[in-house]
């Protein structure tokens, strides 16, 4: 079933996009991530112009995070106060990201920057996650091994502007969460991703938040950052394709529910290893495109009609 997209100005197969949305939704339901890091490169791959893919990806992330947060709220696993602090940083980061994106578009280096971000961030996070989850799996097999202390005091706890985060059981400075929020907001604008894959490990390892509130809080914050990103892209470059978003979202929300059911049956460490491998695979795929000699070294950028 072919469908003409009003903003992307390309004709795509609607069932293919529904399917892509479904697969990515399945992964996000299983692993508890937004799935933006998969959606955006897949949209490039099926011929959606990069600027439209990034902006529309952000819109899709809004839908999957709302769905996720509602599920987490029932379990009271959302730290709203922490979410707000992350948020404050997130908006700043997102605004800067959109400005950088527009500058890079003028220079013709958007693709390079997006690809490099993917390789760098996905590669690093994927490798860290893989290493950590393999270690956790080994530890689980050896009972009696020393368990890491839950609360380790680091430099993070010595910063000023401290605040109580009851749901997380933390009393820490607002600066680190704001910085994390800003970094994730920046990436969200550049890469069209929610940034859960960076946010979640940062909350656990840098802020020392308990794992049970991490996913809900990160999703809560991602809703607003990706909503802001979507709105900003719609208003500055007009690149959000609502029809494309609708197809992705429909496929995604259904896929997410099935993914969540499968996810419950798997062990946390196994899930994390699978997610790590997936993240690394995407990063390697994007990376090889940067290194291999392209079939067509030339590219076209259509400027506004006269």
């Amino acid at each position, binding site marked *: 079933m*072919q469908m*003409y997209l009003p903003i992307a100005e390309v004709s795509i197969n609607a069932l293919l996009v529904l399917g892509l949305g479904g697969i990515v939704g399945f992964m996000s339901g299983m692993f508890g991530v937004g799935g933006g890091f998969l959606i955006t490169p897949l949209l490039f791959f099926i011929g959606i112009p990069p600027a439209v893919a990034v902006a529309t990806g952000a819109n899709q992330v*809004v839908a999957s995070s709302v769905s996720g947060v*509602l599920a987490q709220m029932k379990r009271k696993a959302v730290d709203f106060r922490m979410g707000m602090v992350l948020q404050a940083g997130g908006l700043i980061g997102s605004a800067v990201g959109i400005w950088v994106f527009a500058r890079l578009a003028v220079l013709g*280096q958007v693709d*390079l920057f997006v690809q490099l971000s993917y390789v760098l961030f996905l590669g690093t996070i994927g490798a860290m996650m893989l290493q950590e989850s393999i270690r956790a799996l080994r530890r689980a097999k050896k009972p009696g091994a020393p368990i890491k202390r839950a609360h380790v005091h680091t430099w993070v706890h010595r910063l000023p502007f401290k605040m109580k985060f009851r749901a997380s059981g933390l009393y820490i400075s607002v600066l680190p969460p704001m910085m994390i929020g800003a970094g994730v907001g920046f990436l969200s604008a550049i890469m069209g991703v929610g940034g859960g894959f960076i946010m979640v490990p940062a909350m656990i390892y840098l802020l020392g938040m308990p794992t049970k509130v991490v996913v809900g809080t990160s999703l809560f914050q991602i809703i607003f950052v990706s909503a802001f990103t979507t709105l900003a892209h719609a208003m500055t470059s007009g690149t959000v394709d609502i029809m494309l978003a609708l197809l992705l979202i429909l496929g995604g929300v259904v896929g997410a529910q099935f993914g969540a059911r499968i996810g419950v049956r798997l062990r946390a460490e196994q899930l994390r290893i699978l997610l790590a491998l997936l993240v690394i695979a995407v990063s390697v795929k994007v990376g090889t495109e940067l290194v291999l000699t392209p079939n067509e070294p*030339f590219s*076209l950028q259509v400027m506004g009609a006269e």
Partner: protein
Amino acid sequence: MIRAFAILIALALPAAAQEESIVVGLSQSSVSITTDFVGSEILVYGAVRRDAPAPTEDPLEVIVTVEGPATPIIVRKKERRVGIWINRDKVRIGSAPTFYAIATTGALGDILSETEDLRHRITIPSVIRAIGISSEAEDAPQFVEALMRIRQSEGRYRVNEHAVDLDEQTLFRADVELPADLTEGDYRVRIFLTRDGRVVDTIDRTIFVRKAGLERFLYTMSREQSALYGLLSLALAVLAGWGASTIFRLIRP
């Protein structure tokens, strides 16, 4: 005096009025891009009107071109720097059509002379306006070639020699396919009659390609009320997210 004037007109007439002129019809003068748009086929048909018997020395040939709206384009070239491929040189091309199709009765080189091509801008290289590009990069012509190569592989530029049917040196018809990835705008259809590489007559028609229905509504809104459009996209996302979790909660005990 009057007689002299009449003679003058009579003498001038054969030169002013062409011996052969085109009468043309299009199967449609507008194309609506709706959600289910999968491309369109335009039938260009017509006849050659003659005031005198057809000259016999050189055969009549027909060239049909369909040209989409033109835009400026930046062509970039990737080069390897510290192991990765990045965009380096660029050339700005003043104007290139988003779509261009040529259909002819014979090989373009045989039926159209270079001077006539330059005058009427018929072939793909002559329709692309790349003036003053040589200062922008080394070997600038290869950037124009790349533009043509990429657009041809995308199906946006097409050359179909021998695709125009010509019967009895009088009736002609050509089918021009418009692809699904069509850009909105006015598409100019031109028909050229040639003999011995020389253009005998030419005629212009316009096909209006417009987004229609929902496509039109959404596109206009995204351009003219972008804030509202952005909010609508967000509302849709929130509603879908909330809807999905509610529906599945009801299904799942």
